[in-house]
């Protein structure tokens, strides 16, 4: 059984550490210094938010390389536009708005690319093969997220992984708050279905 698993499948041990909480945000002073052109403060900003941005981009794009490219682009844009940031908005919401835009652009580019390279796509598509008791494998995460539309995935990740409020997500996506709630709700429902299907598949084997 183990030999038949896809290459990317990786079991997670039961005693893995507790989920990592959302890291502390940057202090207001550091943020304002970065906005005023302090390069040291900006480097601190990048170090603080880089992992979260990479996580978000990786879940949206399913590719580490593309995600890193997007995150780097995002921070370059943040550096250019930071003087326009106003304190009344949450900084991470502002940051994720830029990142989400960048990811959408990258996805469109990747989609076009895949139209011409469909053979490569077949080789790298992750397959949900199994679920080890108490574990969630990376393949299953990809499989579950792949069942969501791009908008649902983005809203779900921003709400339940990045911890943004519905109002912030509405600003990121440029839609109404009720529409965001609907997307998150549908995403949750779809994910529950996927998990149930996976459990049933496991029981049948």
């Amino acid at each position: 059984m183990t030999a038949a698993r896809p290459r990317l499948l990786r079991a997670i041990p039961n005693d893995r550490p507790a989920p990592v909480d959302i890291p502390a945000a940057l202090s207001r002073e550091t943020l304002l210094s970065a906005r005023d052109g302090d390069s040291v403060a900006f480097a601190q900003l990048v170090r603080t938010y880089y992992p979260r941005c990479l996580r978000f981009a990786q879940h949206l794009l399913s590719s580490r390389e593309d995600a890193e490219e997007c995150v780097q682009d995002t921070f370059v844009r943040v550096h250019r536009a930071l003087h326009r940031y106003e304190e009344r908005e949450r900084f991470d919401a502002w940051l994720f708005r830029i990142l989400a835009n960048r990811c959408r652009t990258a996805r469109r580019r990747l989609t076009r690319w895949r139209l011409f390279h469909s053979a490569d796509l077949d080789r790298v598509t992750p397959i949900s093969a199994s679920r080890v008791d108490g574990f969630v494998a990376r393949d299953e995460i990809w499989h579950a997220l792949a069942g969501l539309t791009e908008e649902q995935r983005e809203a779900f990740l921003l709400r339940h992984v990045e911890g943004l409020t519905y109002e912030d997500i509405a600003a990121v996506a440029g839609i109404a708050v009720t529409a965001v709630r609907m997307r998150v709700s549908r995403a949750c429902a779809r994910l529950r279905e996927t998990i149930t299907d996976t459990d049933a598949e496991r029981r049948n084997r």
Partner: protein
Amino acid sequence: MQNDEIDSSLQPLVDRLRELPESDPRAVKRVLARIRQYDGRPNARRRALRRYFSRRSGWWAVAALVLFAAGVTLFARAAVLSSAYESATLIPLVDSGGPTPVLLAAENDDSLSTDRLVARKFTIKSLDARQVALVGDFNQWNPRRHRLHRDGQTATWYITVQLPAGLHKYAFIVNDSVWTTDPSALRTVDRDFGVTSSLVLVQ
């Protein structure tokens, strides 16, 4: 529980999604290097200007600059006109029947613009001249630009030149060597070179 909240079935997935990817310290360095690369480009300069003008003091600086420029322009215009009038009025008239009314007109003229051209005929009588050139501030004192023609019967040399409106200094050069002022016009002494020239006001 609302449908958009996380329940026990979704919690393991969300926990897994919340795990941060392994951080690559070189990645952060790459980001900072890219930003440094962009820093020398015009965007950075525009950003610095925008940041400067986003403060109120920036607009005060612009207002002060505009006022200063307007002041300098007015002062320069007044200085040029007063200099021309001064130099013109200092010169005694050779021929009192000639251009005196012209100067009076100049003192009342506040529209000495240079955007229109007016034809002006220059003449000088010389029996022994082989060639005569007209030089002035309108041709950068270049003797090759305006050569006068000779009227054989009257021994009068003449040329018609299109001049911009305003006060001009000029002179004739006879036989490529003799600097001659116009006997029928006002004369002025150039303060810098001490050369006497004639004056003409074009309106």
